[in-house]
């Protein structure tokens, strides 16, 4: 079982600088999307708390809907990030094999 292996640390993943900078740019873009969403939420709570009482649908107010959206969006963005980074690795793998030959 992987988790019970306490030998020396395995060598880290070999990344090329292109993959690193692509992941970094992707991370920053997704971070800015979330920052805008979170910032909007915090500013609305701070400067227009009464707006949070507005009922949007199914008897749920903006406070609840926005709050749940923030939590769910965090997970969705994390999945998107993980998926896109994985694609990068998958697409760069054949290139590495080519290089090895």
């Amino acid at each position, binding site marked *: 079982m992987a988790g*019970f292996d306490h030998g020396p640390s395995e060598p880290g993943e070999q990344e090329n600088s292109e993959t690193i900078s692509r992941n970094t740019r992707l991370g920053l873009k997704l971070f800015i999307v979330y920052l805008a969403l979170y910032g909007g939420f915090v500013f609305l709570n701070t400067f227009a708390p009464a707006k949070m009482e507005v009922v949007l649908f199914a*008897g749920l*107010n903006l*406070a609840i809907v926005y709050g749940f959206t*923030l939590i769910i969006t965090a*997970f969705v963005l994390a999945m998107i*990030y993980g998926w896109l*980074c994985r694609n990068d*690795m998958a697409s760069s793998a054949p290139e590495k094999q080519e290089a090895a030959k």
Partner: protein
Amino acid sequence: MIYEPSLMAVLIFGGIVAITLGLSFWLGSKAKSSQGYFAAGGGIHWFVNGVAFAGDYLSAASFLGICGMIAFYGYDGFLYSIGYLAGWIVALFVIAEPLKRMGRFTFADALDSKFQSRGIKLAAAISTLVVSIFYLIPQMVGAGALITPLLGFPHYVGVLMVGTIVILIVVTAGMVSTTYVQFLKGSLLVIFSTVLTVMILQRGLTTEPENNGKPTHQFQTIGPAAANDIEHWRSELNLNEQDSLIPLNQGPWENKGILQLTRADKISYWKLTETTDQQYFLSETQYKLKNKDGSLIVNGLPYGAGEGETDFYPVGRISKLPGDKTETGALGPAEFLSTIRESEIILWGSETITEENGSAVTIYFPKPTSGQKVLSPGNHPKFAGIRGTDLWGKLNFLSLMLALFCGTASLPHILIRYYTVKDQASARKSTIVGIGSIGYFYILTLFMGLGAMTSGALDVTNSNMAAPLLAKSIGDWLFAIISAIAFTTVLGTVSGLIIASSGAVVHDLMSSFLKIEMNDFAKVRIAKIASVVVGVIAIILGILFEKFNVNYLVGWAFSVAASANLPALVMLLFWPKTTKQGITVAIFTGMVSSLAWILLSADSYTGIYGLDPTTAIVPFSQPGLVTIPLGFITLIVVSLMTQPKSQGMES
């Protein structure tokens, strides 16, 4: 409130502790190298590590503090959930992978990988120690608060027990056992919180909640009438001539709207509440009188479970359901929230009045509150500023939300978990698993908190007990399991913090800063000694800070972590002109300024020094809004002043 120790809870608790310790000893016998001790040999599976992230992060403050805060103040507690989770976005998108690429053992390793500077090692080590110890205090206080009802021991015994068990866990196996304790705890917490939420929804909402099969005490409210219409109040209360009803308006009681009723030699207090048309309602309260000799009177009788003694009534219920129904039956998640929004709920406030003779009366009074208000922000005293016009109150809220956002990625015990997986992809995947489990749990906190708020089972004196008591109102078995999980929550988080601190002492202070040569065996031995020392400090502080609010202390830790560590981490990763002097000075500036701000704030004036909060030097209590940017500015200015000369010539 007095809690009867439950045999089932004791057995389940004992079982979980025994399993945890057994696992520690077994795994401990396998980890021999220093990397095995601090970073679990980099061999932990990403899924296990992801759930362990949840275990690390969902500390006593998350589980007990947030549920309690929602149960007492509604939506404001959920704001903490949102802020705590949002912080993970900073961790995943900005910090996780570069950090994994750079370091091996500690936060300082990562910062220092470019410069090899002793100054950075010293600054990062001190900041790790300060943040870890700040974060340890609320965990230990939480442990004491849990043990009292669970096993019937006093607070200090609880703190001592947790301290001792954790020191044993950490000393036996280090990061491996900590990871598995966290995995176990994270899984159990998510599974049983789901069970609890499903049962809350199945039970639905009622205006007459039962507690252990018994109906809850119905607190009387009379009126409306004019505030000073004593005759009206006397007649509604059916008082006879021997009974007295006196408005208290002298000395410390002035403008509190309290009336003292003496009936058959038993004293009770009643609180006036103003309606919109300047009429008043008079509500029955509960109270605790602490005499100068330390004796306690509750609701007019000595506090205790014996004959002639009494205890607080459990509280928390809906006073009006939509359509004047008395119960709803099973509800779906959205239906549960919309029904609460259309109901009226009895929340509880409290006020402590210290008499000239040194005795103190704490009065707990009902506050009928519309569901609409319960499900929107601004009910908690610390958040009330957003509903006012005062700018400082609003800035205080902004500052807290900023610290929660920035604090997560700067917590040493979260950062070291990135070194327990083998590569960047695993660090990324485990963070995604962590975000999924933590986010899911935080959604559940809203249902658990609101479930507790309407369960008729709340302890009016202790919001930390909301989640376990909610479980008790459903069944003793669930109470037993939830209490045991809450306890392992404390065990796990404390273990992680102690590992982070001992890592800072061995690697950063002794090995890198003081340049003491040590082999692997000596490093692990010194780390274990450091763990014992930090553990003992945590035990002492946990006993001293008994009366402090758990979430309040966590807020401190987040603010200090974000101010000291985040500017250094972010700028090192994204600004090539960062210098070692810039990092060192920024860490010290962020740490010292945030600590100073906290100590000079209105919250500390009331909480620590017992001074008038209006005389506080800083205008609002949360430092983040000022001290996080200050850390960044300091780093930029100092780095620009200390650019290497050769670089300047080349350019």
